[in-house]
C-alpha cells in the first residue's frame, strides 16, 4: 500500500469508497432508508445526496423487499445499485429477493442475466438494541450459491473491498460490524482496490492459528498481545471475504501451527465458524495436533441488559481461553 496514509474511521472509509466509485461511474447509485437526508443511520452515505443528487441517492419508504427487488431489477438493466439495510436483521424481510432472485438469476438464466448489486448492512450487537437488531447472519448467505460475502475489520480493508464489491458483476453482501464504524485506522490517500477472495495475515505467529472475522479480529489481536507476554505466538488470519474464501492461505497457516481457533460473531450452531472447521478438517486433518476450538456468539437471542449482552457476545477472554485450550490439548 501507498506510503501517504491518513487516519480515518471505518465509516469514513466506506463513505470515501462510495464517493470515489460514484464519481468514477455514473451508473453507481445508493438506495435505502434514510441514506439521503440523514446520510445513513451510521453516516456511511453522509453527504452523498448533496454531491450526487436524489436520482443517485434514493431515500426509500420502509419497504425492505422492494428495496432489494428494485436493486436487483436496476442491476439487471446495467446500473450498479448499492443498497443499505439499517440492520442485517431486516434482511429477513428481503430474503426472497436476495436469495431466490439476486443469487440465482445468473445461473438460472444460463448466463443471460447479470446482477451487479451490493447489499450493505451493519451486523451484530454491542449497544443493547436487543434480539431484533443484533444478528450476524453471514452463514445464511455463505450457504447460498451465487452470493459473495465480504466482512472487513479495518478502515483500509473496508475501503478497498467496498470499491471492489461495487465493481464486481455479482451480488455482494457487504457486512459491517456496527462497533467498528467509529474505529479509526490508516487509509492510503491514493486510490487502491483489495480484490475479493484474498485473506490477510493480521499478525504472523508460530504456535497457533486464529482465524477471525470482522470485529473479532481485534479481539484476536488483543489476545495475541496478551499471550505473547507468556511467550505464545498466535498467527491471526482474517478471511476478509467469507465467500469466495482464500482457503489456501488459511490451510497454509494451520499446516504450519497445527493448532486452530476459529472466531466469529455469528451464533455457533450452523454458523460460519463451523464451516471453517469443516473445510480445515477436510484438508488438514493429519496436520492437526488438537481439536479445533470455536469461539462464537452464544446460541441465544441477543439480550438487552448490558451485563447479559456482554455474556452472550464474543470477548477477548473467550478467545484467550480457547487459545489456551487449543494449546493445552
Amino acid at each position, binding site marked *: 500500500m501507498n506510503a501517504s496514509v491518513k487516519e480515518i474511521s471505518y465509516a469514513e472509509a466506506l463513505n470515501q469508497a462510495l464517493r470515489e466509485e460514484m464519481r468514477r461511474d455514473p451508473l453507481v447509485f445508493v438506495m435505502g*432508508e*434514510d441514506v439521503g*437526508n*440523514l446520510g445513513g*443511520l451510521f453516516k456511511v452515505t453522509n453527504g452523498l445526496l448533496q454531491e450526487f443528487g436524489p436520482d443517485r441517492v434514493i*431515500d*426509500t*419508504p*420502509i*419497504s*425492505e*423487499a*422492494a428495496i432489494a427487488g428494485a436493486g436487483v431489477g436496476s442491476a439487471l438493466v446495467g446500473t450498479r445499485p448499492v443498497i443499505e439495510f439499517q440492520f442485517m*436483521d*431486516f434482511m429477513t*424481510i428481503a430474503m426472497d429477493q436476495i436469495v431466490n432472485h439476486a443469487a440465482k438469476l445468473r445461473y438460472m438464466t444460463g448466463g443471460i442475466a447479470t446482477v451487479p448489486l451490493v447489499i450493505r448492512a451493519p451486523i451484530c450487537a454491542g*449497544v*443493547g*438494541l*436487543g*434480539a*431484533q*437488531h443484533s444478528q450476524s447472519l453471514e452463514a445464511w448467505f455463505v450457504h447460498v450459491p451465487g452470493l459473495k460475502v465480504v466482512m472487513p475489520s479495518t478502515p483500509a480493508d473496508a475501503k478497498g473491498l467496498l470499491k471492489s464489491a461495487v465493481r464486481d458483476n455479482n451480488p455482494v453482501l457487504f457486512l459491517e460490524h456496527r462497533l467498528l464504524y467509529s474505529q479509526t485506522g490508516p487509509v492510503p490517500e491514493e486510490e487502491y482496490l483489495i480484490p475479493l477472495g484474498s485473506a490477510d495475515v493480521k499478525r504472523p505467529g508460530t504456535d497457533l492459528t486464529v482465524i477471525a472475522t470482522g470485529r473479532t479480529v481485534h479481539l484476536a489481536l488483543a489476545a495475541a498481545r496478551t499471550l505473547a507476554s507468556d511467550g505464545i505466538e498466535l498467527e491471526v488470519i482474517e478471511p476478509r471475504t467469507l465467500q469466495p474464501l482464500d482457503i489456501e492461505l488459511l490451510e497454509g497457516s494451520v499446516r504450519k501451527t497445527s493448532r486452530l481457533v476459529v472466531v466469529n460473531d455469528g451464533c455457533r450452531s450452523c454458523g460460519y465458524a463451523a464451516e471453517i472447521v469443516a473445510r480445515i478438517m477436510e484438508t488438514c486433518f493429519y496436520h492437526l495436533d488438537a481439536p479445533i476450538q470455536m469461539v462464537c456468539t*452464544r*446460541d*441465544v*437471542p441477543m*439480550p*438487552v*441488559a*448490558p*451485563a*447479559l449482552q456482554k*455474556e*452472550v457476545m464474543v470477548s477477548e477472554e473467550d478467545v484467550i481461553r480457547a487459545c489456551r485450550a487449543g494449546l493445552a490439548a
Partner: protein
Amino acid sequence: MSTAQTSESAETRPLTISREIRLEWYTRMCTIRHFEREIVQLNRAGLVAGTAHLYIGMEAIAVGACAAMRENDLLTSTHRGHGHCIARGLDMGHMMAEILGRADGYCHGKGGSMHITDVSRGVLGADGIVGGGIPLAVGAALGLRLKRNNSIVFCFFGEGAANQGSFHEALNLASLRQLPVVFICENNQWALSASFSETTAGQSVARRAVAYAMASDRVDGNDVEAVFRAANDAAERARRGSGPTLLECITYRHEGHSVFTRQEIRPTDEIEHWKKQDPIERYRSLLIAEDIASASKLGEIDAEVSRLVSSAAAFAKNSPSPGLATAFSGVYA
C-alpha cells in the same frame, strides 16, 4: 376502572363522556408525558439500556384508543410503545426497570424498551420490526375467534409501517375473514428521517382501506376525545362482527426519533407549529373551559402523576442487573 366504564358507555349512543373519565384521560396523558420525560433524564444519566422511542406529543392516541378497549381486549404495539402500555395500565416501575435492563423489568432485562410485553394485561408486545406486529394482530384475532373468545384486537403502527408488505397482506387477510381488529395508524408524519409525503403514495393511510373494502376513518390524533369516538366506533364494528377498521390518527412527535438516534432533520417551524398543538395542553384548556376541573385541580393531578413516575424510576434504579446465568436460559418454553 375507566376501560370498563367507557366500553359500557360505548354501547349507549349518544356517547357521553363523564367527568371522571375525562379526568382519567387527562391523568393518563400526563402520566405518559412524565414517564417519557423521566426516560430522557435516565438516558442522560446513561441508565437506559439500548434505546427508547419517546411518545411525547402522541399521548392522545394511546389514551383515546385504549379507552375504547375492554378488560380482555388485546393490543399489539410498536417500537414506540410506552404510551400504549401505560394507557393499558401496565406497571410503570416494571416498565422502567425493563427500559433500564434490570431484573425487575417485564422481560427481566432481556427485551428492553422495544419488547415490553404483558399478555395478562392484553399487551401482546412492542416490536422492534416496523410493520412486524400487524400480521401478529391479525393472527391473534384469528386465534380468538377459534377460541370463541369475543375480545377484539387493537393494532398500533406508525405511518411508515403502512409501506411495508406486511401491512398489505395483513389487512387483506383481516378484511377477508372480517376479523375483529382495529388498525390504528399513528401518523406522526415522519418515519425516522423520511417524511410522510415523500414516502407514502396517495398521501393517506386511511384511503388505503379502499383496497380492502375496509371501513376507515381519519381523525385529529391530538384530540383524545376524537380518537376515542373513532376508536370506539371501530371497536363496536369489530364486536358486532362487522369486521376490521383502519383508523388513521394525525399527530406529531415532539422529540427526536429515539434517544439513540436524535439527529433532527425536521423543519424547526414545523416542530414549533406542532408543539403548539400539544394534546395535553389542548385537553387541559378544554377541561378548564368546560369547567370540568380548575387549573389548580389539574395541577394537583400533574404533581401526583409526577410523584408516581418518580417512585417508578426509583424502583427501577434500585432493581438489580439480571443474574448472568439468565442470559442462557429461557430460549425455549
